[in-house]
């Protein structure tokens, strides 16, 4: 490395330090504490000093690394090996992952907590795959995806509590409702692209949430909807003591009652829903409409000149993406048995977008890895309480530094020649 580079790195790190100081100074450095009568400011310059130092050091190390131009640090070695592995053996990886997911509930170390985290990760994987249709394939940046999740959850909750219909009837209805909302959002944004589209979709997400809060007669406002029916195993409820004339799951299969039965059932339910989403996406990519989505992402004018109808193409992308969001929402509602507008804030949209972008736009496997990474890391640091969001942010920064285009950035072609081994 040349001397020039080192000096440059020092300079850059110094400025990073200044920015860190400006940020951490007031946020961390000045802490208000109530003593006796009134608030006092207690300075914590020591903590600020450490944080700024860490930023400078981190920036300097990154600079050193990029100045060498070859990726030789531990992280990049690890990630590049990892992605080479998954790209070459994507199929094996997928099969192994699915097998693991299938046996996961029966592994010896799997307890209630692991199951809950796994269900959460799978929900996000499904949402990521759903959003991937809109963002990854059609290239329409949707920052309000949580709206469809919410529409799905509320449709399911309202239909199920009002009419008492079973999960398997309510689920497709909720999906249809969400798809309808997808088209509703699609129409006004047909002419928009990029940043402008992102802003409008963001607004749409907020509109839905605010409607949910204020339309008290229907949605019960901020109090939410309670008593949403739990799913049943094809008519067999998961109850310790079933109502008269009913047989519950454990009695039918002659098992001892355990709450885990329901959890395991929920786990398989979301696993199947997510895999359906994935299968659907993989199939539709090979059909004209899926190809049109990808073409639209690449170049809208070329699409028009080739006879692709951009209106229909965009609307189908929004509708289908929204439908899967709606399915996931139904699942969320039935799992929680209680929903309120609080579950559908912008941060949810942001996490889902982050999963799609960090996974590598359009990569199905990338979504899985990013979900496990982001949700898993946030869970792992749950003991740190509010500081775990730092872990979340840190995870994103790490991916963006070492894999700027996402974990799996390469798009797999939909057509491969026979015997073609790349």
């Amino acid at each position, binding site marked *: 490395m040349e001397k020039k580079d080192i000096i440059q790195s020092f300079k850059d790190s110094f400025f990073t330090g200044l920015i860190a100081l400006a940020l951490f100074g007031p946020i961390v450095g000045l802490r208000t504490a109530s003593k006796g009568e009134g608030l006092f400011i207690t300075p914590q310059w020591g903590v600020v000093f450490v944080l700024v130092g860490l930023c400078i050091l981190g920036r300097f190390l990154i600079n050193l690394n990029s100045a060498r131009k070859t990726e030789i640090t531990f992280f990049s070695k690890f990630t590049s090996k990892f992605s080479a592995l998954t790209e070459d053996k994507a199929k094996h990886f997928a099969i192994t992952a699915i097998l693991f997911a299938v046996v996961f509930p029966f592994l010896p170390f799997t307890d209630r907590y692991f199951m809950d985290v796994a269900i959460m990760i799978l929900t996000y994987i499904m949402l990521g795959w759903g959003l991937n249709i809109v963002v990854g394939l059609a290239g329409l940046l949707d920052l309000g995806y949580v709206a469809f999740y919410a529409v799905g959850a509320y449709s399911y909750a309202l239909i199920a509590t009002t009419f008492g219909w079973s999960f398997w009837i309510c689920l497709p209805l909720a999906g249809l409702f969400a798809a309808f909302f997808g088209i509703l959002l699609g129409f006004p944004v047909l002419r928009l692209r990029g940043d402008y589209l992102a802003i409008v979709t963001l607004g749409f997400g907020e509109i839905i949430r605010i409607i949910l809060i204020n339309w008290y007669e229907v949605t019960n406002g901020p109090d939410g909807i309670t008593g949403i029916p739990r799913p049943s195993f094809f008519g067999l409820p998961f109850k310790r003591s079933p109502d008269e004339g009913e047989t519950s799951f454990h009695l039918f299969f002659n098992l001892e009652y355990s709450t885990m039965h329901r959890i395991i059932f929920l786990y398989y339910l979301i696993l199947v829903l997510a895999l359906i989403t994935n299968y659907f996406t993989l199939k539709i990519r090979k059909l004209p409409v899926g190809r049109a989505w*990808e073409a639209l992402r*690449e170049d809208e004018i070329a699409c028009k*000149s*080739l*006879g*692709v109808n951009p209106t229909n193409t965009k609307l189908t992308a929004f509708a289908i993406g929204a439908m899967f969001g709606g399915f996931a929402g139904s699942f969320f509602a039935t799992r929680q048995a209680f929903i309120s507008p609080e579950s559908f804030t912008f941060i949810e949209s942001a996490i889902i977008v982050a999963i799609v972008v960090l996974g590598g736009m359009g990569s199905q496997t990338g979504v899985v890895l990013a979900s496990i990474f982001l949700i898993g890391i946030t869970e792992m640091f749950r003991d740190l309480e509010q500081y775990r969001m730092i872990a979340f942010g840190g995870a994103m920064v790490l991916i963006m530094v070492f894999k700027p285009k996402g974990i799996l950035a390469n798009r797999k*072609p*939909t*057509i491969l020649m026979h015997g073609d081994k790349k």
Partner: protein
Amino acid sequence: MLKISNVETFYGKIQALRGVDLDVNDGEIVSLIGSNGAGKSTLLMTISGVNKAKRGNIVFKGENIENIQPHKIVDMGICQVPEGRRIFSRLTVEENLRLGAHANEKGKYFENDIKEVYDLFPVLSDRKTQRGGTLSGGEQQMLAIGRALMSKPKVLLLDEPSLGIAPKLVNQIFVSIKNINKEKNVTIFLVEQNAKKALELADRAYVLVNGKVTIKGPGQELLKNKDIQAAYLEGGAKN
């Protein structure tokens, strides 16, 4: 076959076409030359329906098409190879070609059509699993033309096929255009800055200046025209 009369197109308040009259007959190669900003690409986009004409008529096979949506115009048999090729760069060569067949019966005759394109441009066949963005400029142009041919057009609109391409490949592409016209019986409407090449190839040609046709006539005749030589041939395009 394609008759354009008194077409005016605007970008906001700026008028790009000031009453263009032009016609293309069945089986012809017609070239349109003009300098930067004359409105050549705007005219093609207006024919394709991507830009809408504010006034005037565009008649294709006896039907007015000036208010028809772009994808329906492609269905009717007019396909454009846009300026700058506009390849779907992350999609493979074959996927690009499949997208061209989008309008054509949803790929019913796909296998046969794609074979014809590969016969016309063998290099595409070698690169069918390669991403569009990794091709050279000339190969991309071939792909763009091949992609447009997949929609089985009756009229092919070509926007600056020589732009940013090595001279040797330019010749090859112009030969291909001639072949497409003669062998596949596709009418060609070619827009070019490379005036010499465009005029040599053309049965008839038009010159567009400031959104208006100023000169028209057989290609060979325009090559000898003093004004055209002064404005378009001697300075810029000598190759």
